[in-house]
Each structure stands twice: as C-alpha cells, then as structure tokens.
C-alpha cells in the first residue's frame, strides 16, 4: 500500500498530467522570488565593507552554482532510479536535467570569473571552487555527448544513466582532491559563501534567490519532463489524449 505512490510515479500518463498541473505552481513563485531577490540584492542590500558593490555578484553567482550542483545530483538520483527499477519516467527526468545543469554551470563559471576579476586582477584564477565547477561542466558535457552519440533512446537512457551515477560518486572525490591540490599551491580564494556574520539585509536576498532558483529548476524540469515522457511513449490512445489538452 505504501508503495502505490511510487508506482504512480512510474506511470507516464499520471506523471505527465501531474507535471502539467504542477507547472504554474512553480513558474509564478519562481518569477516572483527571483524578481524580489534581484531587487533586494541590487537595491536593498548594503555594499560590502571590503568588496563594495562587487560583492553583489554573489546574488547571481551563488544561485547558479547551487543550481549546477543540485541539477547534477537530481540527474544522478533520477538516473539511478531509472537504472534500478527500469522506470521510464525517471530516465525522462534525468534526460531533462543535463542541458539545464550545463547552462547554469556556465553561468556560475562566468559570474565567478567576473567576480574574481577585481580580487585577482585577472579573469581566471585557479580557484578551487571554479576548478570544481569547470570539471562539473565537463561531466555535464560528457553526459550530453554520450546521449547524443547513441541513436537508440533506451540504450542512450541506460548508458548515460550509468555515467551520471559514476559521475556523482566521483564529484566529492574530485572536489576534495581539488581542495587538497589548492591547499598545496595557495591560490587566493575570495568566494567564501554563507559567512555567519553576514547582515540580514545581505543574507535575505541571497536566500530568496536560492529558493527562487530552486523553484525555477523544478519548473524547467516539469516542462522538459513532459516532452521527454512523450518521446518515450508509444500508446496511441494516451498520446492522443495528451496532445488534445
């Protein structure tokens, strides 16, 4: 009995309808939160006493970086579920994630390098956070390249799912090895997030942006998920119903 929800999540028509119903509940809050966060970050938050207005980049950099990691983990969890229970919906969800994750990883890298420009005097410094982010980008690109190299959708799903699972096991190892490497070479790091002494006026917009981006991700995932489910579905009556909406 406790498993019925799990089986329902495995049923493509059910999830398709559910995703359609849930979409507005994430789209509008995401838009509202991001607008509020932008206003708070750009206008209400006081300039940092050390970094001045430069620190405002945190309000776009941190949510992008958060998003990139959240997307990768979500993708890997969905992939694992798809592999273990051979659940098509889970594969569809994993497939929906990659492009979202890769684009926000690029955003995190670019904003990070713009943020570091003043501190480092150069756009690229081998900052451990940025290096980890760069490797995460490579992991996303590898996942997407593998998917597009395999013609058969089921095989692409399963092969890329395995890659995502292997990748997520490696992400912490990569991250800590980069930190270790950095501790040996002493590159300066300006990006210390979540300082406990951050005043509320600075912290609040950051939290609002983080929540807003999380809602944005769920919204994007729900929209893409519907498309990916349709691609995997073959029952005509069902497709006709879904298209009639």
């Amino acid at each position, binding site marked *: 009995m406790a498993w019925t929800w799990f089986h329902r999540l495995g049923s493509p028509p059910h999830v398709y309808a559910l995703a359609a119903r849930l979409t507005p509940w994430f789209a509008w809050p995401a838009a509202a939160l991001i607008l509020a966060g932008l206003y708070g970050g750009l206008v209400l938050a006081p300039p940092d006493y050390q970094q001045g207005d430069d620190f405002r980049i945190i309000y776009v950099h941190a949510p992008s970086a958060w998003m990139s990691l959240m997307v990768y983990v979500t993708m890997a969890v969905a992939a694992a579920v798809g592999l273990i229970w*051979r659940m098509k919906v889970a594969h569809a969800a994993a497939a929906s994630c990659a492009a979202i994750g890769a684009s926000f990883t690029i955003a995190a890298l670019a904003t990070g390098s713009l943020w570091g420009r003043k501190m480092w005097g150069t756009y690229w410094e081998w900052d451990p956070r940025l290096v980890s982010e760069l490797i995460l980008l490579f992991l996303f690109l590898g996942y997407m390249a593998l998917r597009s190299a395999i*013609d*058969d*959708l*089921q095989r692409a799903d399963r092969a890329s799912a395995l890659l995502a699972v292997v990748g997520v096991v490696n992400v912490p190892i990569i991250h800590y090895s980069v930190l270790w490497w950095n501790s040996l070479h002493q590159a300066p790091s300006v990006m210390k997030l979540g300082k406990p002494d951050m005043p509320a006026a600075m912290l609040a917009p950051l939290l609002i942006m983080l929540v807003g981006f999380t809602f944005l991700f769920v919204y994007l995932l729900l929209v893409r998920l519907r498309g990916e489910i349709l691609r995997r579905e*073959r029952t005509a009556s069902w497709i006709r119903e879904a298209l009639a909406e």
Partner: protein
Amino acid sequence: MVRRSIQAERIELWRGERHVLAGIDLEVGAGEMLQVTGANGSGKTSLLRTLCGLMHLEDGRLLWGGRSVYEDLPAFHSQLVYLGHAPPLKADLTARENLHYWVGIRRSLGAADITAALERVGAAAWGEQPARTLSAGQKRRVALAGVILFAAPLWLLDEPATNLDGEGQRLVGTLIDEQLQCGGVVIVAVHQDLPVRSAEPRRLELSAA
C-alpha cells in the same frame, strides 16, 4: 531436476520506434525444436537475444523450467548456449585455443574433449591453425564444436548453417537430432528448413514490423 522447457508469454520488445517483437508467445519443451523464420529485419536475432536474457523485455514473461529467468540469470545462462551469426572466434588464436578459452570459462575441458569435438564436426585437421586462416565455413564448424562442448540443454542458434556446404548442413541437422534425443531444447533462426529427422519441425514465422 528442472523441467527443461522455455516459455515466452506475450513478450514485447521495442527498438527506438520499431516494435520488434509484438506479443510473441512460444513454448518449447524437452526434445522439441522451433524454427524461427522471417524476412531480414523481422526480428529473428532480436528474438533469440531476448530469449537468452541479453535484451530486457518491456512486457511479458520469460520462463525456464517454469521460473522467470530474471530471478537468476547466471543460473539460466549456464543452461544455454547461444551462437550468433558471427562465430565468436579470435583471429589470432588457433581453433583449439579458441575453444579452450571460449568454453573453458564455463566448463573445465581437457585436451581430449576438444579433440573429440573437433573430430565430431570434421574440423580435426585444422585444430592447430589460427582462426585467421580458416574459411567462413571452417570457422562455422569450429563454432559448432563449441556448441557441443558446452553440453547445455538449451540451444539458441542464429543461422547455424550459414556458409556451410551440403555436408555441413547435414551435420548441423545431425547435431540437432542428437541434442533433441538427449532431451535438449533447440530454437534456431533459419532461412531454409534444416535437415532434422527426429522431431516434428515447429515453425514460428515473424513478420516485419
């Protein structure tokens, strides 16, 4: 002792947008043989590969001795031998070495076993030659020697008589006859009927999707 019979119930298989196997039902018991026919691309190879458990069913059930093969795939695999359209031989190993490594992974073999099997298929003369130097028909005979050596109850053979001369085709028929007399189960994908005497040849015609 498991009852030797393979059963497929309404098995479904898709390849991308192609519905390769649409609700196939079959049951082949001990001493029975099923010939799978159909045009190129009708899914004969896919059916055999599905019956071995290589390709996962999307729907339906696959049973060996009344139990789902997916419960214990290694146990099921140790009951079968599958021969695809290419003989799984390494060009740089001799025929004997090929059999030693191929079959040896499952059963321990002595040199005498290999000699006997090679003699049985009329391949004793080229046992020491690298597979590279063998003709397609000769390789096929070596592969048949492997099939015998596995001594498995279930045979799944994909076009076993390809590249064989008339005598070779009769040999395939005789080997299958012997397997059926020992209570084996044989499923073959074929273009033309094999010369098999001992069993009523049952046929499954696949139509291109």
